[in-house]
């Protein structure tokens, strides 16, 4: 048997492989036995938990954490994800014992501080987006989108206009947009973009009609450029009787500069884990607050924090009888909402503007330097917003080195890969978003890595095609991972029972 306890710097045995019967962390044993539990409530089989010492557990998880490629250790320019730094200050204040110890069913009179924070967060999000009302309850961006389209549906149905069952999305939309529309029982109608990245207005005019419930788009778009014809788009939607939905994924680029409400949007979601710097960690917990203009106010999901003569109160179905309902127990991910609130209070109004200015400056600096280094921009005539797209179609055609190869080789240089192969309409693309929280030296380091890899595609393309070379694992079997996903440890046959 292999000595699974030995650390070779690459493979890390699972915690179950380290398990030895009867080994426990004595200091953490419960002080009392559970003898007082009635026999019928006790387990008949021992739970399959690993049995290791406390020190073994600490070392195992510390080593795993050291393998992490994360925002705390590396530049993380994952386009459209806004992987910015999460200030430790937000974390600190959100973890105050008064917040952590509060029970969600405690009387509101005992939770006025928390409710005040959430109320002010609602107000600040209204202010920054130009919306009339905000609900914080959606648990993530996708649920925020669902809430938004559910409100569009409720709005049309309340007017007796049930024929509106189509949602228009541009081809560059986030994949969640058509998914959301489908989840809400809508038919998706896709419209193309012009070669310069703006929406094809003629196609939009042809697509809208008496069946159009809404138009979903984001500005700046997923192509990393500001949609210049947004006023015309809003007018076309309005004339057709459709509502306009703003996907908040790219809100970071325009914070404090332009407001979706002023652009003519009726409803939007905000990815608080992107723009307002709460952690993304492992797919959650997210927070996808949803904001609406006046016409959709009655349909907001509950609860919402209101204010009356007695102080802060929960508003629920009794206050908003036409609400689309509840999306989460209590108030979404309150801990995440608090981090967003503290972040906004820390940077203030001027800070919001700086976020957008430096996010856009960093993106354009990186784009200019990478173009000078020999990379091809997908939209060379457009200024970048907070992110931009390079296309490696020439490198792929001439040297057989793909965007995926570049992404893998970047890891060897200590850089997290940008988003690859999205948006799909740009061949062999890298979608790069540096965010405002990166220093110039970090951006220069990324340019140096990209330049070195570009040179390798000529001198040693195999080195790039077989990357990564310096990580604990090499090229993964994507096909097997997709077809035979296996995340649960199972006791090997013949193992101890």
């Amino acid at each position, binding site marked *: 048997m292999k000595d699974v306890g030995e650390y070779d710097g690459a493979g890390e045995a699972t915690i179950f492989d380290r398990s030895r019967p009867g080994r426990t962390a004595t200091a953490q044993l419960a002080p009392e036995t559970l003898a007082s539990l009635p026999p019928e409530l006790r387990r008949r089989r021992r739970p399959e938990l690993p049995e290791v010492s406390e020190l073994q557990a600490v070392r195992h998880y510390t080593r795993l954490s050291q393998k992490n490629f994360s925002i705390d250790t590396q530049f993380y320019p994952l386009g459209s994800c806004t992987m910015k730094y999460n200030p430790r200050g937000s974390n600190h204040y959100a973890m105050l014992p008064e917040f952590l110890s509060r029970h969600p069913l405690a009387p509101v009179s005992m939770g006025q501080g928390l409710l005040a924070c959430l109320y002010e967060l609602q107000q600040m999000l209204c202010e920054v987006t130009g919306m009339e009302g905000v609900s914080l309850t959606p648990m993530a961006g996708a649920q925020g989108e669902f809430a938004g389209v559910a409100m569009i549906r409720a709005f049309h149905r309340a007017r007796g206009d049930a024929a509106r069952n189509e949602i228009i999305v541009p081809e560059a939309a986030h*994949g969640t947009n058509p998914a959301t529309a489908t989840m809400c029982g809508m038919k*998706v109608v*896709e419209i193309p973009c012009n070669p310069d990245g703006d929406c094809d207005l003629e196609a939009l005019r042809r697509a809208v009609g008496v069946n159009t419930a809404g138009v979903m788009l984001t500005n700046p778009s997923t192509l990393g450029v500001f949609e210049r014809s947004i006023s015309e788009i809003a007018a076309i939607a309005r004339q057709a009787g459709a509502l306009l939905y703003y996907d908040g994924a790219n809100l970071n680029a325009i914070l404090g500069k332009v407001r979706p409400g002023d652009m003519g949007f009726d409803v939007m979601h905000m990815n608080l884990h992107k723009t307002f710097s709460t952690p993304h960690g492992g797919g959650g917990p997210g927070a996808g607050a949803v904001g609406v203009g006046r016409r959709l106010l009655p349909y907001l999901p509950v609860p919402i924090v209101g204010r009356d003569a007695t102080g802060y109160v929960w508003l629920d179905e009794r206050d908003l009888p036409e609400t689309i309902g509840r999306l989460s127990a209590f108030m979404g991910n309150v801990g995440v909402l608090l981090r967003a609130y503290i972040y906004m209070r820390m940077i203030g109004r001027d800070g919001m503007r700086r976020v957008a200015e430096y996010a856009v400056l960093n993106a354009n600096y990186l784009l200019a330097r990478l173009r000078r280094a020999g990379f091809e921009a997908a939209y060379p005539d457009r200024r970048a917003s907070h992110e931009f797209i390079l296309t490696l*179609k020439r490198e792929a*055609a001439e040297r057989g080195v793909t965007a*995926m190869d570049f992404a893998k080789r970047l890891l060897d240089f200590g850089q997290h890969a940008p988003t*690859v*192969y*999205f948006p*799909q309409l740009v*061949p062999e693309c890298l979608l790069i978003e540096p965010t405002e929280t990166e220093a110039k030296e970090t951006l220069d380091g990324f340019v140096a890595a990209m330049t070195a890899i570009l040179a390798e595609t000529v001198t040693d393309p195999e080195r790039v095609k077989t990357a990564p070379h310096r990580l604990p694992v090499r090229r993964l079997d*994507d*096909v097997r991972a*997709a*077809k035979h996903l296996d995340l649960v440890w199972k006791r090997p046959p013949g193992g101890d029972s």
Partner: protein
Amino acid sequence: MASNIPTDLRYTRSHEWVRKNADGTVTIGVTDHAQHALGDVVFVETPQAGRVLAAGEACAVVESVKAASDVYAPVAGTVVAANGVLADAPERVNSDPYGDGWLWCLAPGEDAAATALLAPAEYETLVAGGG
């Protein structure tokens, strides 16, 4: 990399191929160029037999390790059969896009003849242009 574009088929701008069968039905799949751009296919969803499709309607999904892509009906009509083999062997779309990797078979509707499909040479030009 040169794509395989059989001369006996018709094509679409969205990279489907169409084969006319002797019984009047047509068989549809995605082109060699499309399968190559997608990368290793790991999941395929095909339309149910009996479903009526409009030309251009998204009716199948091909998911690869890179992305999930809609496949559109090149002509209007009624689905006669779908390739059930792909449920367990989606990689056939990569290994044999014009043969075992076919997606579905369609009885064209009355107005199907009016739909403009690309000749092999036109599709070759499209692919060469980076489309």
